[in-house]
């Protein structure tokens, strides 16, 4: 980024859906992809007289996430109503948290080319999701359908400090956040299904004669992938630079306010939508239907006990415990906790962490990718693959054959030993047996023996070839070589 004539300042607002069975304020299912409006009840439909009751499990999950993000947990927190009219919001207010979020002042460490960078978290708060509007194709503007299944799904909003200074850092932040939240089973963070959504607040600092000028902040929305986040920020920063060159408007100037832009992924441009000051006045006030929550230290301790090892700590441990490179550790931890657990079991089982890493990051990851599957659905347990690695090493099974055994184990089942036998990969290791085969081969190749005796060393290759054919390649080359030399000298 050093060659850009400005510095980019980015803050991210991330919404993740929590992995609860039921919604934030009622007992409806949060499962994705159910028939429209089937997962609804009077509470999430906002029918008159229906009242919200907090889902304790959602709050626990949110606290877990906040603790993992090193946030301070408030001892007193409450729910507020954010009032605005929209057809996907049946009550026409969203239950959210305004001035007393349940957590604040945390941080997340990300990896950058310059090393580890700490990104501050301003706050994380809980709120309910809205429904979805399905607009009729053709845009007659007449029929819009509303699906309220998503209404009331627990959302955790995580607001970062504006401390990200490159599009790549924004992406790294999102990847680290996703890794953390997936590892802790707080959210599945699927951008495609909307369980992770991200808005980016972007502006640039341009050095000039009097110091540094900051451009007005633009909130970029409609970011549907991590790649889109990266591209949109890059585009928006450049657009702001151009704008600044032409109008010179700075943050804080009279009449300049925060704007909202939508990212058009197809055209690859941000489109500034409206000035923030024209946006709704949300008239926040405490929701009188919900009692405030008092979180004591026992409650926090209870949740903290469920955290386990966080990805950052795990990375450090894996590197030192298994002597892995930073790159390999990254590849493994990025796959999530079950994958790491599989690796550790495999490494223990086969007694060779480097081999375990090779098998895992090459063969197994390839299989999982091909199958679009998760390690939890992988057909062979870690100790079975560990056995394969041990057998291959013990019997000198070459890499290609070992891969064949692996492929068979994965597709057809069976243990390493069974499959090796079935595929005829059992090595000929009996010296007497091999000596017999060598002798027979010499008898059948009398000319080659004579040639060898006459100084044609190469002639031995013909005999070796015959032995390998006889043993279907299952004899170890060095052993064949050794016995053959002995027998030729004796002949």
């Amino acid at each position, binding site marked *: 980024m050093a060659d850009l004539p400005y510095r980019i300042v980015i803050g991210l607002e991330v919404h993740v859906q929590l992995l609860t069975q039921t919604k934030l304020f009622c007992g409806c299912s949060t499962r994705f992809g159910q028939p429209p409006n089937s997962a609804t009840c009077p509470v999430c439909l*906002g029918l008159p007289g229906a009242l919200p009751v907090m889902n304790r499990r959602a709050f626990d999950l949110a606290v877990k996430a906040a603790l993992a993000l090193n946030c301070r947990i408030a001892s007193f927190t409450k729910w507020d109503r954010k009032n605005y009219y929209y057809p996907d919001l049946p009550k026409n207010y969203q239950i959210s948290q305004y001035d007393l979020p349940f957590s604040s002042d945390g941080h997340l460490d990300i990896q950058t080319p310059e090393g580890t960078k700490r990104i501050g978290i301003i706050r994380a708060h809980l709120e309910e999701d809205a429904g979805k509007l399905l607009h009729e194709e053709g845009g007659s*503007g007449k029929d819009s359908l509303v699906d309220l299944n998503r209404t009331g799904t627990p959302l955790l909003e995580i607001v970062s400090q504006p401390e990200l200074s490159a599009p790549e850092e924004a992406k790294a932040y999102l990847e680290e956040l996703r890794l953390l939240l997936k590892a802790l089973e707080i959210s599945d963070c699927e951008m495609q299904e909307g369980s992770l959504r991200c808005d980016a607040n972007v502006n640039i600092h341009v050095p000039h004669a009097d110091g540094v000028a900051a451009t007005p902040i633009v909130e970029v929305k409609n970011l549907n992938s991590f790649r889109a986040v990266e591209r949109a920020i890059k585009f928006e920063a450049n657009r702001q630079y151009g704008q600044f060159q032409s109008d010179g408007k700075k943050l804080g100037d009279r009449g300049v306010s925060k704007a909202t832009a939508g990212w058009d992924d197809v055209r690859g441009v941000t489109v500034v939508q409206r000035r923030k000051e024209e946006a709704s006045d949300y008239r926040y006030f405490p929701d009188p239907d919900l009692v405030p929550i008092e979180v004591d230290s026992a409650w926090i301790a209870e949740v903290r006990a469920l955290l386990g090892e966080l990805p950052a700590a795990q990375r450090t441990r894996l590197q030192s415990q298994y002597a892995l490179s930073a790159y390999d550790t990254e590849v493994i931890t990025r796959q999530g906790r079950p994958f790491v657990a599989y690796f550790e079991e495999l490494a223990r089982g086969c007694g060779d962490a480097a081999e375990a890493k090779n098998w895992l990051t090459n063969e197994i990851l390839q299989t999982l990718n091909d199958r679009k599957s998760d390690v939890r659905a992988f057909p062979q347990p870690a100790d079975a693959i560990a056995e394969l690695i041990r057998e291959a090493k013990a019997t000198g099974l070459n890499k290609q054959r070992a891969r064949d055994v692996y492929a068979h184990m994965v597709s057809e089942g069976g243990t390493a030993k069974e499959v090796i036998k079935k595929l005829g990969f059992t090595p000929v290791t009996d010296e007497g047996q091999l000596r017999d085969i060598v002798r027979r081969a010499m008898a059948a190749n009398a000319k080659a023996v004579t040639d060898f005796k006459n100084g044609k060393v190469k002639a031995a290759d013909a005999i070796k070839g015959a032995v390998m054919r006889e043993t279907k390649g299952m004899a170890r080359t060095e052993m064949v070589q050794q016995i053959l030399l002995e027998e030729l000298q004796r002949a």
Partner: protein
Amino acid sequence: MIEHTAADLLATLRKGDGSAESLTGAFLDAIRQRDTRVRAFLHVDEAAALEKAHDIDARRKRGEPLGALAGIPVAVKDVLCTAGQRTTCGSKVLQSFVPPYDAHVISRLRRADAVLIGKTNMDEFAMGSSTENSAYQITRNPWELACTPGGSSGGSAAAVAACETPLALGSDTGGSIRQPASLCGVVGLKPTYGRVSRFGLVAFASSLDQVGPLTHDVRDAALLLEVIAGHDARDSTSVDRPVPKYTRTLDDPVQPLTIGVPREYFGAGLDGEVEQAVRAALKVYEKAGTKLLDVSLPYSQYAVATYYVVATAEASSNLARYDGVHYGHRAAKHDDLIDLYCRSRGEGFGAEVKRRIMLGTYVLSSGYKDAYYVKSLQVRRLIKDDFDRAFAQCDVIAGPVSPTAAFRLGDRSDDPLAMYLSDIYTISANLSGIAGISIPCGFTKGGLPIGLQLQAPPFEEEKLLRVARMHERATDWHTRRPKL
């Protein structure tokens, strides 16, 4: 028979005299004969009521156990959701709304084998003090048909006073049970906030709303409160603490008893005849050995102002859902989404509801919120502190319910401020969450009932009822019935 209290009717039924079916029939007859004049009911479901009564009789005959209100008709303010039955809130917006669920108190009534006889008229969304804000009809005071029954639970109060039902439920946000009870000469109890679940009570102002009984006497109020009170997991503001057997201790006088008399409740604006009746009621207590203590509630002068900020703020948000999109009234013609909202709400809501939505939106809006809404919450706290201080010195607080007896219909409809002042003595109980009751304590020369208000600390309903009962046993105001 229709003039009897529920307790008496229950005793008769238990003895085997008469049947629930004939009893329900008698009240249905009364409704048919009287309600064309009183207009207390919005919907009466004769068939369902008679069927329920018939079923109770059959179960009684088979010797099966029956609930605490077995066979007794109960009228319900149309603000409470009844499964499969229209619940309009007195508003056009909910003209065709049929809830798929019962309010918690309705479930409790069904479980107690009460006969749900019908839904009563009310000010639209419980906003008003005369029931004139109903979108459907004007309810009249059974004691003087030219007068208001009060509001917003005017339908329930009038139905009990007119002996069209022995028991009724109302809701009280700023006096909406106690004021109509006072104006109709019946007993009306607003329980402590959190004592009765609000689940299925269509919200006006969530931090103030509470469901309570309207009855002929204090015994019936105790009986009905016993059925509806208690924790409900569906309302997080409902409090999980045991419900005393109010009916069991009712006749035990509270001794020694100190009644606090706030000087602020006897100032300017209080009608002379009302003051006289209330002072006479205090004399009744004094005669029985009660100590009367002068107390002060200095912040009560701000109660009405505070209330109209807090209540309207909450209402502006609570009523946002009536937008014509998902249910309720939708304008037939509209250009776009905003137009759909504007027309549906414009057509669906009456003037008072619109006034309060505008007020509430204003006091919450950016730039005004601190001066109005936030300030009101602070004053609300001070009003609560006033009561805490007073209750440190006395058991209950006594005073008038409303500054005047029933006023003539139409008299205050064009003067919202005069109407708002009808609740000047009742509003602070809602702001502070305490319990309050209105009991009959006399009549004006013109024959209009006057009520005495007693207020008790949170969850002291048992004491409140016992104190109220002491007055009732020494007087006969509660036995009077209007001629209809």
